[in-house]
């Protein structure tokens, strides 16, 4: 019966060759417009541009950390872990709780730093544990189910985690005591670079280096890359696939925890649905950079955060913050349609 479907009575679509011709032109035009817009704004208000750039850089580091989690998990399971953003949000909430219960407001010096490091360890372990549990409970059983099944459970888990946060902290934003020093590090052109922004970068960069070393240099990292490439073949080579996948979720969760700590301390409030929103942005970042590609995720995070920050703040011909979400999703759609392998070219699952 299906053999006759060739004669379905519908009009045919335009040939794909025309589409192939139009698409690169269109994409080039978009990029050109983007640069014109940035350039004009830079000339008109250089100080504002610089200030927004710094905000974008800081947010980009956080987005990058979350995007890495998406990328890692996607690389190994080809699953969009919708719950990842909510794991990050729960981490932020745990930090909010710890900051107030440790009474860190007003502290400074070595004690503060050791406490922040302690919190980092706790929150990373916490989020890693949540993420591994989710994999164990919700995804492992569906390894051989149709592709959509784990995706749907991921959405379900995301809603469950959101509601756990809702029960825990309520619907209003939970404010976090401001404990990061906010003095200026240096000032260029009348714009101060503050310590809290620098600290976000100072935490992010080592985490990234450790991650890259882990994936590229260790045995476990090799196992991850092998599993990402071919699960069955790596099982035959004696790799414990289930443990490797668990480990990937563990690492992704730990990264989400680190991002949660930085976010809570830097932005100083967390809301139960914040994780979902930020998760989608971070996912977009991962896709922009090339999902499964680790440096790409960080690059994508920076790019998306810059665009968000410039769109929220610039003056000339700017849609404004009302449209930020739409712009980010438009970027997501455009990238997926025109260049599904992301900006960093070839799609290599792990390690890049």
């Amino acid at each position, binding site marked *: *019966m*299906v*053999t*006759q*479907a*060739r004669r*379905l009575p*519908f009009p*045919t*679509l335009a040939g*794909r060759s025309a589409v*192939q011709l139009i698409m690169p032109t269109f994409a080039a035009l978009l990029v050109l417009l983007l640069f014109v817009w940035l350039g004009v704004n830079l000339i008109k208000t250089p100080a504002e541009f610089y200030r927004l750039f710094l905000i974008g850089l800081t947010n980009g580091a956080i987005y990058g950390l979350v995007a890495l989690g998406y990328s890692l998990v996607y690389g190994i399971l*080809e*699953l*969009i872990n919708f719950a990842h953003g909510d794991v990050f949000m729960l981490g932020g909430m745990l930090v909010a709780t710890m900051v107030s219960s440790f009474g860190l407001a007003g502290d400074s010096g070595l004690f503060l730093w050791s406490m922040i490091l302690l919190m980092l360890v706790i929150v990373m372990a916490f989020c890693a544990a949540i993420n591994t549990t989710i994999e164990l409970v*919700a995804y492992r*059983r*569906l390894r*051989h*189910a*149709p*592709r*959509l*099944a*784990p*995706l*749907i*459970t991921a*959405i*379900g*888990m*995301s*809603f*469950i985690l*959101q*509601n*756990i946060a*809702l*029960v825990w902290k309520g*619907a209003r934003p939970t404010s976090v005591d401001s404990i990061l020093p906010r003095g200026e590090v240096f000032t260029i052109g009348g714009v101060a670079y503050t310590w809290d922004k620098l600290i976000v970068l100072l935490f992010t960069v080592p985490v990234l280096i450790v991650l890259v070393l882990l994936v590229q240099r260790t045995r476990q990292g090799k196992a991850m890359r092998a599993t990402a490439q071919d699960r069955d073949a790596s099982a035959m080579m004696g790799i414990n696939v289930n443990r490797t996948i668990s480990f990937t979720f563990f690492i992704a969760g730990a990264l989400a925890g680190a991002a949660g700590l930085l976010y809570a301390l830097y932005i100083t409030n967390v809301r139960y649905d914040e994780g979902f929103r930020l998760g*989608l942005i971070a*996912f977009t970042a991962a*896709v922009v950079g090339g999902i499964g590609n680790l440096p790409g995720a960080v690059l994508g995070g920076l790019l998306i955060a810059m665009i968000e920050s410039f769109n929220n703040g610039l003056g000339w011909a700017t*849609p404004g913050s*009302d*449209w930020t*979400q*739409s712009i980010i*999703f*438009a970027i*997501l*759609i455009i990238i*997926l*349609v025109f260049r*599904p*392998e992301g900006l960093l070219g070839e*799609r290599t699952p792990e390690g890049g």
Partner: protein
Amino acid sequence: MARSRRQELGGRVSKSLRLDVVRAQWRRLPRRVRGAALPTTVIVLAFLYPYYNESLPDIPVFGSFPSVDTAVTMTIFIMMAIGLNIVVGYAGLLDLGYVAFYAVGAYTAAWFASPHFGESATAHVGSVGVNPNAAGFHVSIWLVVLVAGILTAFIGVLIGLPTLRLRGDYLAIVTLGFGEIMPQIARNGDNLFSTGFNLTNGAQGINPIDPPGFGETLNRWLGLPSDYLTAANGLRLFYWTALVLLLFTVFCSVRLRDSRLGRAWIAIREDETAAAAMGVPLMRTKTWAYAAGAFFGGIAGAYYASFKGAVFPDDFFFNISIFILCMVILGGLGNIWGVIVGGGFLAYLNQEGLGNIGAEINQTFGTNIDVPLYQFGIFGAILVLVMLFKPEGLIPSARRKAEFEEGVTEEYLYDVRGAPE
């Protein structure tokens, strides 16, 4: 047959004998009649629902049966679930932005049947229940519903054309993106691109939207209600009309499923590569699934807007997409009867059920939990539990069940790697 049984039974009580005769008579009826009996009974019971829902006894934990008001909402959401079922259940394309179609339908009703564009234009086409001199577009809701369906189907094609060649999970994300963009356009559409053009009236939404009705002439001649808002039994009229729309949706959905197009959808769902090899044109077939699903979403959205008399951008957030998806999955992907049951049950829970259950829990345990606040957590849990333990849904279609048990091939023709550059 019946005779021999009676002889065997000998001197049993007459009641069971009579039942036996009835059963024998029943078997003698033509197959067609027997097959139609259950749906007919259900339809008749559904149409008569407003007459007896008050006198039904309370169910334990759930409380009273849904009111007619809730029943209208349930019916409309079932329509949307059936529309989504065409996309997700038949064609196997996960659509996480179905709310966009609902929004387009609702805003179509708001544009063509309200005083919204009153400052720039006035036109009346068979409008009922409004002042004949009222400003703005006032088109008969029947027409608006149809236009909304067609417009939404068109939008579905527009969204589908560039995106449908993507692989399953990427497609899901793209539709999610559209589902997030639509409400933002609705929210910020009161001053589109700083041109001062008020498309959606922003966060205030658009109201009042005209009610459906048949106008004075038909009222005088045939006794049909002139408009639902002022009619004495207006709520019941809304309910019955919704049921008629639902019947239309179910009819179309069943016929589509059994058509050549529907078989092509199912072939794609089961194995895209094999379907393509057999000559099913992938893009075209998928686009039609989108258009068909969107069409019913648009109809439901427009009718719902007319029922509520208003649209607000906050009605169209992401969670609604998941809510409708949850209906389809709970009932049974691809099985229309399952989707009806799942949709009705979840819409009821959302409207009344959770409130009733919460009140019951709080009364029994002396707690003070706001159960409806956690509705999406509950729906999320339903998604996870159904997917883990009964992925084919509560009332599965036999075919879908087999797919979930035996698995289907996971290779996609348009893989990221294979996508045209």
